[in-house]
């Protein structure tokens, strides 16, 4: 294998037959082999960690969510059509539905990454490994693939490449992809039927994955977030959703965001490896509880009276807090800034949920908004720190 690569390598170098494909070749080579580059300047030894390792760690942390999501897609389909399926049938159905999402996300995203790296003559950055893993988990399973493709292209080009690639972007590309979907195709992307696999097709074609069964009588398809928004705890109970259902994740919703248990497994991996900031996660939870608690005290609508901790298990809050808000590039970079940033993410999410009747999922917008303000937070944190230091020196 190594010999083969060494043999074809010269033709991909500058002046070689395929010299214009240099970045592409390099990406594949460095994917297969840790390169033989040695340190030239500065420190002679380097840590064995690199960005590939960090990205793969995030991907591993996302695996529980993905696996649960695959099962849950089948499970929800099973309920919706009253099929009486066994475990493996549900997994198989979920697999068939989620796999195309992954294929589209990775093929479109990586193609753009490769092309732009090629144009710039850079090495291909591994950032999209994570974005591509995230995107299918935060979209509704019934999203049309062509829409997903356009959204991914938008997110990668406008969200990342125009700024110079991974490390330079302002907004989290995966979230930008979801935002694009929601605002560009509101008719397709909202409503209650999009969240359960197969329902959209049933409603248009009259056939689902398994023909013969119509929609179950009790099917509503609405996510618990909608119930909670309309009726608080009572609304959830009327829909037959308990706190434990929300926690385990056996509810309709975007593919990977429903199970708090799977997300917590990922959170433990991320925090333990130090890849994501526990400060952001914790302060986001505090922020959500604070605003939720405040609204409890004020009361008024059933949603405002819902206990604040319900917000933590509803909708995309947990997933967003653990995997999206903590993106090291788009979050605040100073340690104090992370506390502020996380708190505001949590607080804004609950605020949007409770006070915006038209749009129940606040997580996406809260994070994107805070992404925008993260550099500003950092700026003031640093100014304050420098000011403090100057004062200290003056006193001394």
């Amino acid at each position, binding site marked *: 294998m190594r010999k083969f690569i060494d043999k074809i390598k010269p033709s991909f170098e500058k002046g070689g037959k395929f010299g214009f494909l240099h970045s592409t070749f390099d990406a594949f080579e460095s994917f297969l082999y840790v390169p033989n580059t040695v*340190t030239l300047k500065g420190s002679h030894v380097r840590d064995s960690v690199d960005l590939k390792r960090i990205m793969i760690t995030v991907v591993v942390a996302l695996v529980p969510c993905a696996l649960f999501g695959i099962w849950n897609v089948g499970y929800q389909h099973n309920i919706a059509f009253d099929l009486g399926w066994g475990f493996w049938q549900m997994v198989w159905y979920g697999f068939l539905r989620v796999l195309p999402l992954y294929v589209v996300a990775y093929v479109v995203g990586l193609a753009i990454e490769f092309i732009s790296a090629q144009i710039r003559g850079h090495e291909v950055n591994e950032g999209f490994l994570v974005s591509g893993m995230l995107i299918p988990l935060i979209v509704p399973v019934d999203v049309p693939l062509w829409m997903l493709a356009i959204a991914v292209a938008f997110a990668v080009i406008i969200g990342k490449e125009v700024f110079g690639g*991974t*490390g330079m972007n302002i907004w989290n590309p995966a979230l930008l992809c979801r935002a694009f979907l929601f605002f560009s195709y509101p008719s397709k992307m909202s409503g209650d039927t999009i969240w359960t696999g197969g329902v959209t097709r049933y409603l248009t074609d009259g056939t689902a994955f398994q023909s013969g069964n119509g929609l179950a009588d009790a099917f509503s398809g609405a996510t618990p977030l909608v119930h909670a928004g309309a009726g608080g705890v009572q609304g959830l109970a009327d829909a037959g959703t308990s706190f434990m259902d929300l926690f385990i994740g056996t509810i309709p919703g975007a593919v990977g965001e429903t199970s708090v248990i799977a997300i917590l497994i990922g959170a433990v991996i991320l925090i333990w490896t130090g890849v994501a900031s526990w400060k952001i996660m914790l302060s986001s939870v505090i922020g959500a509880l604070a605003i939720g608690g405040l609204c409890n005290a004020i009361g008024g609508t059933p949603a405002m009276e819902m206990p604040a901790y319900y917000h933590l298990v509803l909708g995309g809050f947990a997933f967003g807090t653990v995997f999206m808000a903590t993106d090291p590039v788009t979050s605040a970079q100073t340690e104090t800034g992370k506390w502020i940033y996380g708190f505001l993410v949590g607080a804004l999410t609950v605020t949007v949920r409770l006070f915006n009747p038209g749009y129940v999922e606040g997580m996406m917008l809260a994070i994107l908004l805070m992404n925008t303000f993260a550099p500003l937070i950092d700026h003031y944190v640093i100014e304050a720190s420098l000011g403090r230091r100057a004062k200290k020196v003056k006193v001394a």
Partner: protein
Amino acid sequence: MSNNIDLKRGLDIPISGTAVQKTRKVIKPDVVAVKPTDFRGLMPRLLVREGDKVMAGSPVLADKKSPEILFASPVSGTVAEIVRGEKRKLLEVRIKADETQEYVDFGARKVSGLSADEIKDALLKSGLWPAFIQRPYGIIANPEIRPKAIFVSAFSTAPLAACAEYVFKDEMENIQTAVNAIAKLTDGGVHVSLNSENYSGTPFHKLENVTFHVFSGKHPAGNVGVQIHHISPILKGETVWTVSPLMLAAIGKLFNTGKYDLSRLVAVSGPEANDPCYVQGIAGMPMESIADFCKDGKSSVRFISGDVLTGKNVGEQGFLGFHDNQVTLIEEGNHYEMLGWAKPFRTSLFSFSHTYFSWLTPGKKYDMDTNLHGGPRAFVMSDVYGKVLPMDIYPVYLIKACLAGDIDKMEKFGIYEVLEEDLALCEYVCPSKIEIQSILSDGIDLMMKEMA
């Protein structure tokens, strides 16, 4: 030890090959080199030609900007070769050593009777002035000014560094002489930092005429820059000098014996060193004289004058640096590793991050090599750098300011307080493989150019 300054952040790199405390041999170098590249920003003027006879202590180079600063030959012999690089940049003056060593006699003198100017004069004439490093920027001290204070770190936390207690066990008298001498060059006093681990055990504890500070923590707690940051941060317009115990010993010897004597115990260390231990050597000694330390059968070994974080790759034909008392031998890691980044364990490699499992084996030492372990990328992880930098600065912002060449921002983010060595660990842990030391170095050069 009431005012122990405990530094929580840092990292001791677990590299194998610590030198054991014995001296294997005395090196009588055949050829030694005086290297102007050991000093930042030095524009050297040659004072000798090939074939000239020199004695130990005879001036070989002078500083073009302040010609009173001289650089002397560590041995007596004949100037054998003047090595130049690109654009005729002077790299080395190689001197072939004589069988018997003759020293220029500068005259042994009692320090207590000398004035500051006489001390300055003696150091300048003898070629020991370059022992002082001036901060900001880490340049040779300017003899015209009186620094705010002079700082000495009496311990080194750098990977595999020479043990101060061992290499200076016979030099304490000289170091005391030197301290008495340089104390006259400043009004702020001489500040010596000790390691809390052997605070009372180290002979430095007995020094007089100094102010002690005690530090504990992992590398870079032993870096004098980090210590200054905690003792008395350098503000704009201030200058401080630093000097190493190694150079204090040489300064002491000058006043006690009248000789320019740069002989020193050198730690030969590193994973590729066979039976790592000390040798009695001298500044500018050739790497060839310790080539017998190399393990058999290894073809590509990197000879580093200094430690693995900040040392210079001098090569097998190279020479020991002026300020160094350590040589590290490590393997060139120019090999491929199939899917290395995806392997779950990779137990032979160390990582500061928990993405590998080396945290399960805290006592283990690793045979590190020079492989970069990845490709260069943009800054992504913003919080790893602070974990190894016990200073109140924002390294990522500072480095970005250096990249942008923004003088105001560099100043704001503390460029006066740091040298490359202080940020070396940030470079080590960087998952984006950014050349932080080199970027900082360019930033400092720019500052010197713009602020001059």
